[in-house]
């Protein structure tokens, strides 16, 4: 087990390296470097920037140097100083912007992940055990719809429906008076009151996906002979279910649990944009639209790194949960 964990850890290093290169390419992709864009912006808004300031920025980000030096400067700043560069649209360090939004993103995502798991898995189990019952048909149908409608469309439809039918305008996380207010108990309570709608909208497609996988996996397991044997030996139905088939059926979902890590960081991007949530997703979109590439690049770098780490965690979890993987048998038939 320890050897396995260490091996997987080491394999992370080259992947992180490649990721940083890809992100750097993305940062460099838009035509013209960002400093010219920045100076243009300042000029159009009437602010004059001094020659020294420009020279300082050029030096800090090594803009006069060739590509590979620029890359090294960029990555060195990140690793050694935790400096992800500057957002030129907001005219602030990237780190500050991320800090502001990361907590809310995490709260929303955590809530929805709990929903996705508890509801998705339990309905999946129910559907599989009571296959072809009325509720199974209903849930399967809901599952199909949930998988097929993208989050942003669902958000749009629900907001529209709530607005026209009930005259409720779902937008943002806070009531008007709390938007710019400092944190207080009242603000938290206000948020908790309003957080459910976005959480449910964001969770729907995940729930649908989990229902489908859980149902399919469990059905496959229930047909196997060991289940019949256990039943023949007189094991109670609940015990039988929990002890073996569910443990196996949940495996493929454990292997994707790592992906929730970047999701916690970013929040569902597109749905958040529609719902006007102050999370990382909309920040990324605005950065990309404005070609604010240091901000966008940093966000993608963090998300990518979190995905890689998340995959690692899933693999370790999987190895812990499933002895067949732990003992080096990688599913050979």
């Amino acid at each position, binding site marked *: 087990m320890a050897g396995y964990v260490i091996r997987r850890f080491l394999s992370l290093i080259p992947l992180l390296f490649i990721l940083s290169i890809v992100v750097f390419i993305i940062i460099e*992709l838009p035509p013209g470097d960002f400093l010219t864009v920045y100076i243009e912006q300042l000029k159009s808004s009437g602010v004059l920037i001094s020659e020294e300031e420009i020279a300082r920025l050029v030096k800090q980000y090594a803009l006069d140097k060739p590509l590979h030096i620029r890359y090294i400067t960029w990555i060195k700043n990140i690793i050694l100083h935790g400096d992800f560069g500057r957002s030129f649209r907001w005219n602030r360090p990237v780190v500050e912007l991320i800090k502001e939004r990361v907590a809310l993103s995490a709260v929303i995502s955590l809530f929805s992940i709990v929903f996705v798991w508890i509801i998705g898995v339990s309905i999946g189990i129910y559907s599989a055990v009571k296959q072809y019952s009325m509720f199974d048909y209903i849930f399967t149908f809901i599952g199909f719809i949930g998988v097929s409608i993208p989050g*942003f469309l669902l958000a*749009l439809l629900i907001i529209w429906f709530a607005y026209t039918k009930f005259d409720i305008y779902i937008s943002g996380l806070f009531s008007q008076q709390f938007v710019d207010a400092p944190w207080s108990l009242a603000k938290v309570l206000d948020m908790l009151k309003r957080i459910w709608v976005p959480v449910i909208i964001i969770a729907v497609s995940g729930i649908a996906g989990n229902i489908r996988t859980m149902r399919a996996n469990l059905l496959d397991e229930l047909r196997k002979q060991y289940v019949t044997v256990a039943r023949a030996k007189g094991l109670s139905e609940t015990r039988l279910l929990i002890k073996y088939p569910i443990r196996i059926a949940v495996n493929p979902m454990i292997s994707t649990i790592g992906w929730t890590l970047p999701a916690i960081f970013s929040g569902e991007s597109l749905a958040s944009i529609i719902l006007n949530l102050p999370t990382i997703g909309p920040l*990324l*979109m605005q950065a990309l639209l404005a070609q604010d590439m240091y901000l966008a690049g940093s966000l*993608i770098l963090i*998300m*990518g790194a979190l995905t890689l780490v998340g995959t690692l965690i899933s693999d370790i979890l999987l190895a812990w949960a499933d002895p067949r993987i732990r003992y080096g048998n990688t599913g050979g038939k």
Partner: protein
Amino acid sequence: MMQLFTKLARRKKEEIKDEKIFLASQWQLMWWKFKRHKLAMVSMCILAFLYIIVLFCEFIAPYDPWERFEDYKNAPPQLVRFYSKEEGFRGPFVYGMKQEMDMETFRKVFVEDESKKYAVRLFVRGSKYKLWGLFESDLHLFGSKDGPVFLFGTDELGRDLFSRVIYGARISLTIGLVGVFLSFILGTLLGGISGYFGGTIDEVIQRTIDFLVSIPTIPLWMALSAAIPQDWSVIRTYFAITIILSLVGWGGLARVVRGRLLSLREEDFILAARLTGASEWRIITRHMLPSFASHLIASITLSIPGMILGETSLSFIGLGLRPPAISWGVLLQDAQQVIAVAHYPWRLIPAFFIIVTVLSFNFLGDGLRDAADPYSR
């Protein structure tokens, strides 16, 4: 006695059926199994219908999608009627529209003007177009000579939404196919190389796929399409987006191909073919390819909706195709403001088409996947 006869007859029938199964080719078996999946059949018909629309969109759309009807901005959809109060049944027609002030909200709204009736006819001559860039014509599937007909209403600039949805189908529906085609070529080629040669090449390709799969899709799509220059022509952006979509998507396909090739190599019938002296080429094309082509088709079908949604989402948030290009995502941009949607709910019509298309592809893919293995269950 009679009973015995019917029994015998039934048995005979079953035998014939069995024989048919023994003689049927794999594709025939798949077709029989596929036909039993009713939802998949319906979905296939819906998709066929949609793609026929794509082929003839200039003909089916009554107007040029960029043509502005200055007097009809934000006009609601018109209902095609067959009965009128005065005359009873007459051919299909729509009432004309006039603008009135809503006394409660002080907004201008369109109301039906029952004094004006525009007869809707099939095969009406209208704006000129060139079908497939070859045949010049001005014939449209339907329309009215008396006044404009807007089945889905109009947008802010007075453009006919029905025509725009039809034209939008062309980009939205083909982008998935082209994207899947590209990732199919990349996937089968690299997956095939990976599975066939093994060793270092296999390792390199597999790690690349691991890496590609590990990057969150939507942010990557967003980042790459943000790099598309704003001044590119519609066609160039279209292809750039397809390439971006397929760059991310080929990894999964390559894995399927490789896994299948590896497990097929061990199968008895491949060994048998090898023993009878078939060449490598013949084994690959005659024995291996047909036995996993069906799985490939199923997984390809299932990856199309992802691409369609990718294009839609990107265009919706303004990172994909931009007007004057028309795609369903571009059309949905008008629906971003909920207040606007509340006043003009017909702006959500493209969403309905997106959902139907994606659902159909999912059902079709499900049916194909079940049918791909005719011997199961």
